[in-house]
């Protein structure tokens, strides 16, 4: 392959991977924005989203088929279900802990993550579940470069979701309230914003986006298992930090950058693809050391 082909091929791989990272990173960054919590269970919501998407698709495929239209319906159902799961998690595990030491709430987040993983583990027996779809392998050839329709649909869907989120955050009253809460929760409360509702909406949207990514990733890669949320959770967090945690455009940018870095990182001579995870964590550490606020983040004084 020519250099141009390698570059454009990896560009597409990076975009697909980056779309997943960005969708998951958005939830991380939104939740961190409003309650300053590193929601370690977020990657597991992506996993649960994959499974609910799979179950929904199995249930409805006789009616709508299991090509993209069916996957979209399944994805929508999964988003709603996981959104509510996210809200429940917040009410049960995080809300009572808001006044507690910061490390304690981190432990409850880890406990929630264990609960989600082990629930799915005991239901599936820890096996990979085949995510069967009727997605074809067709695509278009641009010169010698091949792009599958699946990749195009996937990136486009992620793009639509992100644009919708951006419009929601910037144009609606809920979005404005959400931004206010992330700047100063107490002050927002005093100004009459219903903070618990805003937190619930934030968890709903964040979790739903992770579910969308989970369903699409399951359909695209063709298999799901109970531990699939772990690594993407870490990577998405990395993406959120690269972009500047708390910043929504930052999470999208960070996700895409990380996806592209990983795709191109595998092409660096002498560094095989088995080093790609090391590569992304090394990038994370470099970003944090050199520019701790991330690319689009605002500097913030630490509150104890």
């Amino acid at each position, binding site marked *: 392959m020519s250099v141009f082909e390698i570059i454009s091929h990896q560009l597409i791989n990076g975009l697909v991977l980056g779309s997943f990272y960005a969708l998951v990173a958005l939830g991380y960054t939104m939740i961190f924005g409003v309650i300053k919590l590193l929601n370690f269970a977020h990657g597991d919501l992506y996993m649960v989203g994959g499974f609910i998407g799979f179950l929904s698709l199995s249930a409805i495929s006789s009616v709508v088929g299991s090509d993209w239209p069916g996957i979209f319906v399944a994805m929508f159902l999964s988003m709603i279900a996981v959104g509510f799961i996210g809200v429940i998690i917040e009410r049960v*595990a995080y809300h009572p802990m808001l006044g507690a030491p*910061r490390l304690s709430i981190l432990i409850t987040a880890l*406990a929630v993550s*264990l609960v989600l993983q082990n629930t799915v*583990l005991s239901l599936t027996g820890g096996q990979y579940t085949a995510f069967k779809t009727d997605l074809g392998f067709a695509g278009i050839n641009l010169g010698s470069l091949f792009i599958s329709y699946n990749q195009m649909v996937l990136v486009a869907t992620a793009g639509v979701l992100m644009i919708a989120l951006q419009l929601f955050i910037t144009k609606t009253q809920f979005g404005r309230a959400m931004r206010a809460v992330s700047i100063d929760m107490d002050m927002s409360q005093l100004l009459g914003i219903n903070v618990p509702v805003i937190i619930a909406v934030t968890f709903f949207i964040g979790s739903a986006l992770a579910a969308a990514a989970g369903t699409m990733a399951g359909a695209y890669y063709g298999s799901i298992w109970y531990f699939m949320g772990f690594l993407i959770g870490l990577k998405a967090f990395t993406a959120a930090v690269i972009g500047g945690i708390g910043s929504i455009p930052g999470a999208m940018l960070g996700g895409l950058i990380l996806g592209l870095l990983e795709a191109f990182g595998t092409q660096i001579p002498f560094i095989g693809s088995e080093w790609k995870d*090391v590569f992304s*964590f090394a990038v994370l*550490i470099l970003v944090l050391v050199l520019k701790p606020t991330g690319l689009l983040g605002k500097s913030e004084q630490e509150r104890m």
Partner: protein
Amino acid sequence: MASHDTGPNRLTDRIAARFENPTLRWGGIGLILILLAIVPSVFGQYATVIMTNALLYVVLALGLNVVVGFAGLLDLGYAAFFAVGAYTIGILTLDFGVNFWLALPCAVMAAAIAGVIIGGPTLRLRSDYLAIVTLGFGEIVRFSARNLEITGKASGLSGIGQPWLFGWHIATPTDFYFVFCCLAIVAVIVSLRLENSRLGRAWLYVRHDEDVAEAMGINRVAVKMAAYVTGAIFASIGGAFFAANLGAISPESFSFTQSVLILMAVILGGMGKIPGVILGAFIVILGPELLRNLGELRLMVFAVMLLLIMLFRPSGIWPKRGTRS
């Protein structure tokens, strides 16, 4: 942050107050030592192996407690130092034929150097970011162990020899049980001495208010670095004996889950409180074992219990008196 759970008459405090009496305290310590001594002969081999693991966790949790509990730095990649200790022993004894007791100080040095390397650029970061950097570091160490030739790639290292100590071949599970007993006791004593030392007080100041500590003439970064390196040393010693005990190590022994389990022991028991941390280590190891007859559900039940404990006792089961976060 809000103070939590600080009443003077909590049950744990009342029990602890009883042990202010020296006779009772030494009696209690004596009783614990006797109980530890009779475990292998009374409860059999299976229990001995589990207890060995619990004692290893006591060492690791006490080490992490120096970092998290004393100095207030959140470390999510603590297993990395554990891995550095274990792999240094593995590589030195297998590839270079070095004696275990000579390799041990090398393992400690390697972990201390790793602590300086990762701590140097990152200790100035805010606490959440530090958590993530340590997490990233932990994953880098694990992936490197999985990819490098010298660490045996994914299958790890096996055939690590069991050490001799003055003519005593430390070989059976019971031998290792007693070795880990000694390690745990040393770890407790070192922790107690550190807590009451000049450095221990410096950690306390830094944990409560970095800026004021700095204004009082404490070198914030140096003090944090000391905590980091101390924690790394604890973990590397634990790792070294872990490698000698099992004879084989693989990258998956040092995963993020491992770091999380150690951190759980620290926070569950009560950060900074040495008896609490020991209790936490035992809960983390013995809990899932006691639930073993629940089969596949045991980790889930364990996680739910963990959640409930944190919800009802946010500062841990046995926190420091008058804990303020």
